[in-house]
């Protein structure tokens, strides 16, 4: 049954919920989710709610059914899943028609992914669906990868039994010693860990693997670690507060802040420059960085801050190059490779700079040529049709010009120019 509401323009508030509508056709469309109804009508005009097919398809309701998720589980439950895995393997091995079980893993490929738009929030995130591929010992080329999954699973089981946490780096060295012919690089370890996540459908942290974080945070925020002393992030050194890789500890932090903005900084040098200048006192903000591609702990903390302070606007300051945009998108949407869990920490990040408009204040001589792998990254980003138009336009311009610009280029206007540049853009709400 349609409920009455009030509002103006294209935003209606019904029952306290904010709903965007677009007046398009004369047909009524009622959306009936499982536990609440949305319907809009008007006494004087026919206001119709039409949802775009893409939006309908990628709406929260549909996405939830399609979404495949890695659960956050306590150690006892993860151990139980691993034990079930072993028992199933042995049952098939000793059956009357014996066989070696295949490992069904959620596919972490583009064709098994989608972008879900939050209907009730501005957050969109990448998700993985239920498409599964198998690893099999019976395929000669797959046998090694098959054994790797079991080796990592056994290692995680031991870690959980001992009640410990290990980083992926520690895992790598342990596996390298035990089975050097199977694990030659960190990348192979990371892939095998993601396979175990995809097999057991539990988060990496639940497996006892701690993210070793490179992240740091500074600014107008007070952190209270349970049982520890209070940390005022505006009074600490330029390096900032080091973000721990233990997601449990991060989840227990008590946060206090009067900041209005959270600014994600791509590079550590810029982070420290702004920290030195106490930029967070000029514009009340929190500065956060992961010194490159974001690790799960930094994303986790960012998400916690944005959940705790939903009115804080999240901005990103990146180099003007495809890698910078890729980093922004990872904070914003998550990633496919860790798609089973990273969707949880997607945030509504807006692109502050550098952008194409800023190029006019950057001298031509400091622009650098795009390398072939950067052009490749740009093109594959552009082919993700789910990227919004304005981001696509920026990428096209990068490729067209064949140049990139770093944030440090702004220093040609003076060392204090950076702060002024950021402040000006924030005040003008010049972000996309």
């Amino acid at each position, binding site marked *: 049954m349609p409920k009455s509401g009030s509002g103006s323009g294209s935003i209606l508030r019904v029952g306290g919920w904010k709903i965007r509508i677009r007046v398009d056709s004369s047909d009524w469309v009622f959306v009936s989710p499982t536990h609440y109804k949305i319907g809009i009508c008007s006494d004087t005009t026919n206001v119709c709610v039409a949802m775009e097919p893409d939006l309908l398809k990628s709406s929260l309701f549909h996405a939830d059914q399609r979404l495949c998720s890695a659960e956050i589980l306590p150690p006892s439950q993860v151990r139980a899943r691993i034990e079930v895995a072993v028992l199933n393997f042995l049952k098939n091995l000793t059956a009357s028609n014996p066989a070696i079980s295949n490992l069904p893993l959620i596919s972490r490929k583009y064709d098994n992914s989608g972008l879900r738009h939050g209907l009730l929030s501005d957050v969109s995130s990448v998700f993985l669906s239920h498409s599964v591929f198998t690893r099999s010992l019976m395929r000669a080329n797959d046998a090694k990868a098959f054994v790797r999954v079991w080796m990592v699973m056994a290692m995680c089981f031991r870690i959980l039994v001992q009640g410990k946490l290990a980083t992926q780096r520690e895992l790598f060295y342990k596996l390298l010693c035990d089975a050097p012919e199977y694990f030659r690089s960190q990348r192979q370890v990371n892939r095998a860990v993601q396979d175990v996540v995809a097999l057991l459908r539990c988060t990496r942290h639940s497996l006892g693997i701690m993210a070793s974080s490179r992240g740091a945070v500074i600014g107008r925020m007070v952190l209270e670690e349970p049982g520890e002393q209070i940390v005022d992030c505006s009074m600490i050194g330029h390096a900032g507060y080091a973000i721990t890789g233990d997601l449990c500890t991060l989840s227990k932090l008590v946060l206090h802040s009067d900041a209005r903005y959270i600014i994600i900084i791509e590079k550590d040098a810029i982070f420290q420059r702004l920290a030195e200048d106490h930029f967070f006192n000029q514009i009340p903000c929190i500065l956060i960085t992961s010194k490159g591609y974001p690790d799960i702990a930094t994303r986790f903390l960012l998400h916690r801050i944005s959940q705790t302070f939903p009115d804080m606007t999240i901005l990103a300051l990146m180099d003007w190059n495809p890698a910078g945009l890729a*980093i922004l998108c990872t904070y914003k949407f998550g990633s496919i490779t860790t798609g089973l869990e990273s969707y949880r920490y997607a945030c509504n990040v807006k692109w502050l700079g550098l952008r194409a408009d800023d190029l006019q204040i950057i001298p031509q001589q400091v622009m650098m040529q795009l390398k072939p792998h950067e052009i490749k990254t740009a093109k594959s980003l552009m082919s993700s049709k789910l990227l919004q138009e304005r981001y696509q336009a920026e990428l096209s311009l990068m490729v067209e010009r064949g140049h990139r610009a770093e944030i440090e280029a702004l220093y040609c206007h003076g060392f204090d120019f950076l702060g002024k540049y950021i402040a000006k853009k924030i005040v003008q709400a010049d972000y996309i």
Partner: protein
Amino acid sequence: MATDFSSSTRRLFRSVRRGNFRLRIGFRVSFSVFLVLHRNIICGIFCPILGFFCRPQLIYLAVQRCRIAETLCRLSISIRCFRVSNPPFMRISNTGVGSSLVEFQDLDPGMCSVSSDKWDGMLSITTTGIRDKDIHNYHLNLREALASKSSGTEVCFSTAEEDNIDDFMAWVFPFVQKIFLLKTPNLAVDLTVEHTENLGLRYSHLHQETDDIYLPLSLSNNERLLLSLQSYILRHRNALDKECQLCFTSRSFKVWNWGCKQHSKCQRFWTDSGSGNSDNICAITVLSVETELCYFTERTSADRNLIKKAVKIALDDLKAKYAGLLLSFRSVKIRNHIPDLSRTIAGLILSSNDPEFHSECASLLGLQSNDACTEETVDSCIREKIIRIIELNDGKKKMERGSAPCLFECEGHLKEHCPEEKDDSEEGKLGFGTPAQP
């Protein structure tokens, strides 16, 4: 009766009667070859020197006589070569029942490639037997036939031919090794070579290795050969392309054809050295014949496809009889990973502190659930079971194998498999880069 025996010759026969078997006589040139016979030796007339006696008939005759005797025989081939010695001659001796000089009459003097100025065509033949008290000596001119019946034969042959001893030995060694492979019943063969060279006296001895393979006397030649070759393959399995110092000192074991005068049907089997390289394919063709096995040579221009097809049939039969010994390359590759997998799973089971989990695993594996259930026990149990499945599925096509069950029930759309991701082109497509950090 012999009239021109040297004293050393007399010693020879006395030693033969006693059971010793080496005769040493010096020669001016090249070498001498002696077939010296143990007490029960029937015959062994063989001289491959210079191609003269390099004819299978002589060997055939020698082996034949050994088989007819139906008693234990020994055939010793002793080659002696000195640079400076007495005028060269060759002595070939045999004892035994049923020997007949008629056999020598059948020898074609034209076969001899020794020039007449170096060899007069004469063979000095001395016969004796196990129950004989007399020693009989004959001179056989191959150009004149002599008929006689005696219980044993020694043929002496001398030549001044100056062939390269190394070429000769390069021939005789693999030849004798091939005789070893026959496992001819009641015949033990050994080859001894002594010759001087610049560095001094060189001595090589080749004798039949004993093993536990005893082939029944009732077997035909072809069955005997087939089983012997099977035994060889089973001993060496997938290392056939490697030298086996025990069996062969040269890599001459390639492809053999066993040719005979008549052949009615073929028994063939074939095996792969495991390297997948066709050059290393070891194909053995045994033709089942009505007549006796005469000779064997290395394969030359036989129809390769026909051989491959024929031996594959025999190989499948062999694989069926000895499951797991002749695995495909794919299965061997998989099998290499099995010990690591079984060790991993066994370690996982034993690292649990849940006794119920332990007992459930032990019960599934058919092991006693007690403290004696060690990681090694569990490891080997799992390993055997996995290996068995690999062996059972070896050679089956994909459709025949069927699809293996999944570890967990998967409700989603099941894809075949995802190859190991090597390229990172997915990064841009909402992969947004793989985090480089650990």
